[in-house]
């Protein structure tokens, strides 16, 4: 258990470095071959197979037992797998070193199951939600003008993905499970998720005003003065209709109306209003 307590000593031996790098690259494949029953379970096993081979190089039985055991259900945001992967490997090493029966491998499963949820929470929120939103927002604003600078954007955009994979794995491996699970228990994870969500919600609020278009062209004459509906709406609240539309979509989706239906509904609405001469371009 020395490793898990030597918190400050996070430098790796040469051999560990090689193993770490290999694991880092193989973990990129976690998103492949997902099944309904095990999700990323098979992928986890394929990813870690050479590492298990290495760890249990002296014990054929334990190696196959590990392969069997790790084929279990697993599912998290692939970008977040690093931490779990690092931790799991460090625990398998303990198991390899431990005398027969003195290490309960159920702990490894427990850790995987315990962490994959919170990590998926923060991961999906941050990567699919917030970060993707911001980067795509910028990318689209460049692409709209045909600006090829957009090709360089992934260099920045992928950084958090790569860094979290790399340092997650490194710290998971070196710091051990105590530290990480304490963070989860202390609510750090939920606090992060909450903070990320706030960023996301703020951005969505801004996006609705910037990206959603609901161009009303309807105008009429009342008592001789031209009445432009869009102008009246703007006086009440700018970007009022985009806001209303987004809220309606949100409410419908929250009531578990299928996204496909909502999507079709919006298209139909756009067509209907345009044919009625209310919206236009």
């Amino acid at each position: 258990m020395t490793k898990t307590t030597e918190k400050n000593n996070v430098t790796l031996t040469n051999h560990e470095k090689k193993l770490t790098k290999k694991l880092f690259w193989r973990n990129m494949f976690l998103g492949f071959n997902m099944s309904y029953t095990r999700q990323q379970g098979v992928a986890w096993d394929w990813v870690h197979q050479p590492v298990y081979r290495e760890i249990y190089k002296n014990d054929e039985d334990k190696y196959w037992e590990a392969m069997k055991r790790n084929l279990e259900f697993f599912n998290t945001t692939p970008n977040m797998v690093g931490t779990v992967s690092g931790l799991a490997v460090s625990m398998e090493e303990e198991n390899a070193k431990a005398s027969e029966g003195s290490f309960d491998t159920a702990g490894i499963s427990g850790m995987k199951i315990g962490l994959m949820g919170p990590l998926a929470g923060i991961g999906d929120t941050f990567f699919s939600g917030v970060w993707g939103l911001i980067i795509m927002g910028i990318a689209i604003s460049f692409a709209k003008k045909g600006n090829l600078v957009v090709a360089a954007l992934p260099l920045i955009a992928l950084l958090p993905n790569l860094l979290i994979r790399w340092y997650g794995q490194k710290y998971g491996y070196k710091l051990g499970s105590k530290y990480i699970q304490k963070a989860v228990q202390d609510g750090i994870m939920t606090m992060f998720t909450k903070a990320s969500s706030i960023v996301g919600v703020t951005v969505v609020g801004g996006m609705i005003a910037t990206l959603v278009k609901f161009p009303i062209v309807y105008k009429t004459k009342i008592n001789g003065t031209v009445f432009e509906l869009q102008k009246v709406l703007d006086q009440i609240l700018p970007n009022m209709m985009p806001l209303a539309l987004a809220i309606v979509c949100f409410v419908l989706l929250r009531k578990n109306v299928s996204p496909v239906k909502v999507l079709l509904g919006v298209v139909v609405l756009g067509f209907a209003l345009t044919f009625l001469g209310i919206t236009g371009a």
Partner: protein
Amino acid sequence: MLLYQAFAVGLVMAFAKFINAYGSFAQLMPFISYILLALLLGESPTEALILGAAVELAFYGVMQIGAVLPQDTAVGGLLGVAFALMLHQKPAVAVTLAVPISMLAVVVWNLLKFWFTANVELFDKYIDQRNIKKFNRLWWIQVGVYELAYFSLAFFAILLGTAGVKAFVTSIPPTFLTALTVAAGMLPAVGMGMLLKFVWNISFLPFFIAGFVFAAYLKLPIMGVSILGVAFGLVMFFIDREINTVKKNKATTIQSSGNDEEDFFND
């Protein structure tokens, strides 16, 4: 010519679907595929980007999370842009094609995942047999089939579909195109709704409001709203941390709270 084009689009599709899974890279870089597409098709990358921007805007905020894949935006986007690029059509046309295709394409993924699920039994068996070779072979076969499936999908769509699409597109009346543009402008609302649904908590309402007010009234651009959002998130994070500390009944004073978490931030 069409054969080559079909082949080219197929290749880009295979690439796009690969990075869709590999490291989740595709999440952030669909425009790389559009540029690639233009280069292979000998069309203007600038034009591809403009078409792609319209399509991505319509898909804006659509997320693949957990078990559910609401739309396969990679397939929809690439085919929509490819057709529009080859037929030199407006962005609205690309969107018109991309949206329904992205919905239909989900079927392919469901079929694949169904097959992968059936194979889990085999993986289990190979492990029991202690046969790592067969295990790896099946793994790579699955990856290969996955790639081939999407390559073929694109290849045949272009090969067999182009004529039909062309006929369809040229027959679109102008009002229809206007309606299309309007509908395309409205579509990001769906993505926004999906995202909101995913992260929503009533206590985030004020930040939603603030984001909207800053963009709608004060014309703060996307980047500015995002940065401000980060400020909001951080403020709440630090307030929560403070409250959390009290919750744990640690008798620490406000400034000098020596709790572990701080190590992460106070340097």
